[in-house]
């Protein structure tokens, strides 16, 4: 993302993007203010996920949906411009402890989420990591599928 326009703040009271928002008359909610500040402080061009990571460090209650909605709004108001996001998506880690370790089977048709644990799978993953010269420290797995039709 790039900022369109010049920095308006001289004494650091408002970030550059907050100042642009004010100039354009955009109502500043707290999530918008945090996102604006993070964008202003970014010297690179973060994509939505990188932006989320940085925002989350400040306010963990801000969701991915809020990030995308705000980016769309900022872009529509010419506060930021969108650059190549690329098609690849970074992988990430789920924050679950060893005691509640499980995976998810997700029915794409209905959205139903089924938690499962499979010892064979756990052993296999450890073995693969070991064979590749690693000690497995974490992983997550989401399976996506559609329910098979029952045979009559």
């Amino acid at each position: 993302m790039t900022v369109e326009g010049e920095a308006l703040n001289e004494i650091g009271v408002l970030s550059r993007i907050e100042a642009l928002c004010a100039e354009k008359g955009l109502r500043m909610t707290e999530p918008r203010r945090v996102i604006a500040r993070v964008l202003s402080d970014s010297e690179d061009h973060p994509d939505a996920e990188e932006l989320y990571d940085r925002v989350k460090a400040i306010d963990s209650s801000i969701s991915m949906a809020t990030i995308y909605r705000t980016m769309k709004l900022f872009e529509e108001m010419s506060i930021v411009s969108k650059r190549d996001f690329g098609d690849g998506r970074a992988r990430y880690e789920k924050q679950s402890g060893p005691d509640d370790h499980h995976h998810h089977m997700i029915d794409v048709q209905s959205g139903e989420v089924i938690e499962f644990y499979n010892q064979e799978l756990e052993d296999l993953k450890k073995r693969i990591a070991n064979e590749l010269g690693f000690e497995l420290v974490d992983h997550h797995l989401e399976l996506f599928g559609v329910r098979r039709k029952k045979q009559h």
Partner: protein
Amino acid sequence: MVEPICPVSAACRQAVTRAYTTLKESGADERVAFEAAEIVYAWHHPEVPRQRVPFVIADWLP
């Protein structure tokens, strides 16, 4: 391309919100839940370019 209009009662929308909400309630990371919702939407609407998907579902999710 204009994305399809999906009312609250649409199966795709219900599936997207259900997957997201269920994963969040089970303690999944926000990014895990959001990406799962993207995949569910993409299954229902393969005609929508993948890079548009997060912007569409962002209007449906908290």
